């Protein structure tokens, strides 16, 4: 019984500590901006690499013009290199605006 109560207290402490950590993290604007910018870089580079891999595998030509955002959905569903390269570029530029 004592062990169960100690266990419950330990879980409560952990949850409280996690909550404090999350609140501190969110309150710290610098860390929030860091996560947005860093996340944007990683996601963008991942989409770009995926686009190049798709071009290599499927033999589709690489695009030389940007696709308007409203037409991007069809390209992404069709798994074209143009769609993923454009998405990578868009994520990159939009991340800077969001921050």
């Amino acid at each position, binding site marked *: 019984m004592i062990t169960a109560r100690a266990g419950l207290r330990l879980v409560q402490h952990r949850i409280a500590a996690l909550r404090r950590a999350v609140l501190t993290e969110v309150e710290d*604007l*610098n*860390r929030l*901006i*860091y996560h947005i*910018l*860093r996340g*944007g*870089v990683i996601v*963008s*580079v991942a989409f*770009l690499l995926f*686009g*190049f891999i798709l071009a290599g595998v499927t033999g589709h030509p*690489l*695009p*030389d*013009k*940007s*696709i*308007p*955002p409203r037409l991007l959905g069809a390209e992404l569903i069709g798994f074209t290199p*143009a769609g993923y*390269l*454009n998405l*990578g*570029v*868009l994520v*990159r*530029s*939009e*991340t*800077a*605006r969001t*921050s």
Partner: protein
Amino acid sequence: MVEVLLLLAVAAFLAGLAGSYLGIGGGIFLIPFMTLALQIDIKVAIATSLIGVIATSSGAASVYVRDHLTNLRLAMFLEVATTLGAIAGAVVGILVPNVYLFLTFGVVVLYAAASMVRVAETAKDRAYRGGDEERPLVKRLNLSSVYFDQEDQGVYRYRVERPGAGFGVSAAAGVFSGLLGVGGGFIKVPAMNILMRVPMKAAVATSNFMIGVTAAASAFIYYSQGLVNPQLAAMVIVGAFTGTNLGTRLLVRSKAANVRFLFSIFLAGLGIAMAARALGLFGGVL
């Protein structure tokens, strides 16, 4: 085409390295390289360069913001001026002949270069000057800040001075940004460092954060008009991302005096190039 992409990735790497170390976007290097060496259309080059500026800025700013080198309040304050300046840039570009603009900025940039070499920045310079009364605007907006310098493991509280003058010069940086499609960091860094007395590393980090925001607004317009070449942009993003990783590591470990010296050399070269363009020499390299 593969050779062009590889050359562009290398150029973007170098632009990202220099940009993250000096607080500039790197567009000032990338645009001439793309148009002169790679024979890329000027509009496509500007659009691709803007993506490069964003990549350099975001890559570097993420590290500087995390390390509390960036003064976010100051960045937001000056960004208002830069954005207004960028809008005015289009009007100024129509009304005032470029020759006067380039000549004026050439002289200003050369003066800034000379000032940065002449006045050394020591730890004492960076320290809080407690005797002076803080300007009301600085106090109200809480622009003064504190940062940790790895150079000497010191924590420095600094006071921002001459906010009005800094605001005006940032607007001028925006004008140039709008005219040339560059970030304008080459004006913002000396303005913050010389005029507003912001320590060099904090000025570089704050400028890096600002130029990405300015460039992102213009880049979306170019993107919507189909002027961004995703192949070129992808290589610029990958190259700049790698370059900024190295540049940010170099800056935090460097001596502020060395950063200032390198920046002043860059400014002197740029000032001569601007003056040369104004006087019609070398066919305009900018």
